[in-house]
């Protein structure tokens, strides 16, 4: 944990000292007059200066360099782009079409391996998925694309929702390990026991690998590649995101994390409010879907609308999620519902921006501050209100057109009388294709 904190502090320091001068050739845009969400909170009339891929300045009265394009955004709201941390963006095009699903691994193998720690989704990430432009139109500019299924689902990738190549879009691969316990088939005690056995063998294998290679150890219970893949989790450099809802399961997960020195992140956490103090003491972040307020499953009997605000009040690092791929664009609405249930607006904004970036170690996202990556959204109004929408979207400083497959369908069918209009005859000399 402390190593990781040091590393992120170093990254932040590097950021703050990032040079903004001497880049005259880069595009400069100044957003002036809006209500700007700075790290300290919203400031009326502050200025955001974007130079190239970065925020050069974000402050009230920030100086606008000569030749910079000045955009009046008064009456608008400027925020860091939102970060969705529990989706399969770029991994699934159509949920029910398995040929478009790259979030699940090993499902064709027999026996179906439930431990897929070596599965890294980054190589499957499709930056041209039609889901990505749709998602951007909800003001979401980055995402953790996560694998799903099995005891250990695999490793997620942190992506920016722009760029036509993996090289551009994938910010960092192997960001976190994802796992799930509770609520199906085997006893949760058995599942947790398997997880402990796995982690124990992975830990032992670190010291016994050479002996194993010389056939001097008993056979392994788990594939060696999976054991090796778990090393960063055991070292505390890679968070383990555990999908778990029932309060007693969260307790068990906290014991597990403590015993193995893991950097635990709880995802789902329908009953997390019941163990909020323990989560706060262990500094374990919780990823909450604020729409989850009903006893939908036996694991979620005590789900309630104010889960997020109770966790926040107890001091638990809070992240908000849609828990959706195709409707990750509704992240602002999720935050609005959390606010309706009592979460302070500032806490909700952090839960969509700064906190996910910090928890997953991508320190230059989620904040409007000098040196930060210019993932910036200009909203028509309150970004959590269902009537609001982005008017400008910048990702890595790039001005993103507000176009998606859905807007093109809308435009095609906007005037039915113009649909399938015949081609007119060619005018002038008919040119034949060469």
């Amino acid at each position, binding site marked *: 944990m402390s190593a990781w904190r040091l590393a992120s502090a170093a990254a932040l320091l590097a950021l703050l000292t990032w040079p903004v001068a001497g880049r005259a050739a880069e595009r400069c845009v100044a957003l002036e007059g809006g209500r700007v969400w700075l790290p300290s909170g919203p400031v009326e009339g502050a200025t955001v200066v974007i130079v190239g891929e970065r925020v050069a300045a974000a402050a009230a009265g920030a100086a606008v360099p000569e030749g910079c394009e000045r955009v009046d955004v008064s009456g608008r709201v400027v925020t860091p782009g939102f970060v969705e941390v529990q989706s399969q963006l770029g991994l699934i095009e*159509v949920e029910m079409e398995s040929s478009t699903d790259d979030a699940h691994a090993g499902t064709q193998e027999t026996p179906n391996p439930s431990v897929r720690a070596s599965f890294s989704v980054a190589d499957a990430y499709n930056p041209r998925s039609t889901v990505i432009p749709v998602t951007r139109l909800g003001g979401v500019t980055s995402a953790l694309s996560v694998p799903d299924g099995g005891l250990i689902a695999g490793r997620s990738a942190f992506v920016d929702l722009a760029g036509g190549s993996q090289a551009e879009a994938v910010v960092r691969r192997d960001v976190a390990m994802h796992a799930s316990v509770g609520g199906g088939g085997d006893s949760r005690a058995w599942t947790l026991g398997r997880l402990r056995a796995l982690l124990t063998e992975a830990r032992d294998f670190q010291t016994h690998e050479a002996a194993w290679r010389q056939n001097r150890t008993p056979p392994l219970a788990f594939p060696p590649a999976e054991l090796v893949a778990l090393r960063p989790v055991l070292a505390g450099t890679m968070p383990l995101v555990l999908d778990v809802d029932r309060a007693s399961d969260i307790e068990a997960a906290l014991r597990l994390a403590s015993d193995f020195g893991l950097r635990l992140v709880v995802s789902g956490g329908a009953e997390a409010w019941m163990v909020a103090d323990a989560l706060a003491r262990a500094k374990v972040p919780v990823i909450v879907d604020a729409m989850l307020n*009903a006893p939908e499953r036996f694991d979620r009997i005590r789900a309630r609308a104010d889960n997020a605000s109770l966790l926040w009040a107890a001091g638990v690092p809070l992240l908000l999620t849609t828990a959706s791929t195709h409707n990750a664009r*509704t992240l602002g609405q999720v935050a609005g519902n959390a606010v*309706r249930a009592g979460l302070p607006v500032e806490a909700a904004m952090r839960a969509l921006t700064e906190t996910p970036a910090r928890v997953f170690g991508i320190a230059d996202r989620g904040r409007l501050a000098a040196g930060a990556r210019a993932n910036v959204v200009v909203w028509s109004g309150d970004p959590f209100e269902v*009537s609001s929408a982005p008017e400008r979207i910048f990702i890595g400083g790039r001005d993103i057109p507000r176009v998606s497959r859905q807007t093109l369908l*809308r435009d095609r069918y906007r005037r039915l009388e113009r649909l399938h209009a015949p081609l007119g005859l060619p005018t002038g000399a008919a040119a034949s294709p060469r």
Partner: protein
Amino acid sequence: MSEARGRRRPWNEVGIAVAALGLVACGGAGAHVAADGKQARLIERLDAIEAAGNRPIEAPGVATGPRALLVGGTVLTAEGHRYSPGWVLIDGGRIRGVGEGEPPADERAARVDVSGRFVTPGLIDTHSHLGVYPSPSARAHGDGNEATAPGTAGVWAEHSFWPQDPGLERAVAGGVTTLQALPGSANLIGGRGVTLHLAPQRGSRAMRFPGAPVGVKMACGENPKRVYGERKQAPSTRMGNTRAFRELFLKARDASQKLAKADDEDALPRDLDSESLIAVLEGRALVQVHCYRADDMLGVLQVADEMGFEVRSFHHAVEAYKIRDILAARHVSVSTWADWWGFKMEAYDAIPENAALVDEAGARAVIHSDSARGIQRLNQEAGKAMAAGRRAGVDLSEDDALRWITANAAWTLGIEDQVGTLETGKRADIVVWDADPLSVYASADLVFIDGVLRYDRSRPQPPWSDFELGQDVQP
């Protein structure tokens, strides 16, 4: 139930037009052109059959709403008026007056000050599986799909409905006062839906919305062909879907003739599946069709014309915007979401402007939920769809968007004469919101059903659901 009868029937007009061209095949209009006497006998027998199958067991709820005057709030009527401040007078479970400014003096009425708040009709969800797929998800409670044959018109959702579903109270807390509980979409003809009033009761019969017509749930497209195709049964393709639809209706037409012709009153030929479809053919039941793709909807309309029935509403209908002119001309309503998409191929072309474009074309748009979560936030979904439409240049008022979850939904369920707007004489199904109801921040403060206060956010009560009682008695 008789309300639906005698409505304008576009298929009749189509039938006449086709006949004029000399194209009508023998028996093309089936039971509808039977001799008047035989038709009357059929109707009489159907009435008797329905009455026998619908005997009340648990006592229906009695509306004994107080005389009360809601004053000082912004009243949104869903029939074109916004009174700010306005007032609503209720008494005996009915709306007795609605207006602007200072209400008429009424010493008998209890004054409820709703200053700064918003008053709307109770919301109506045309598509819910509450009670038939209740919370918590349990194998023992998966009662929404009788997926044992593609045509099961004879099953009734009310016979699956669990009145202890914790989702019901949450729906009311979201301002919903009426919903249609539907069978699922595994089958081409899934069975009868039931329109329910959401006051807590011990059984579904007591919850039935008085006088609401039966709904018959159908489904086109991917689901039926997947469910049966995976079992190597018919249907396994879209063309198989259509053949099965036609065969089921042909069978119902035969059954209808037999029922009308039978001489022995004490030994009528009974066939529950066909009886639900006869109700469809006779216009007594409203057809609610799960259908996503535009071309699939057109295919269902073709079967409807051939067999002689009307589609009341296409549900989900994410591509309705592509055929909104046709749906408007045929008076088919569109029950859809604000923005669900992409979970299956037939949901790939959904756009957030769907409801707005359908509305603009003159068809009735409805925002439905199909979800225990969504039903709690229909107001937000309507607000979202309105905003998407406005951004696309569709001229929409707040009243228009409110109709998507009230008046248009009431029409879809055939109860528009009773609920869906704030008008004198209608049932006093009323919601008081703490903010503009189309805002993400709005919560229902008070919910009246038949003039009876069923929910008050400021006065938490023990849970309605017996299931939820005692889930948290540990210290």
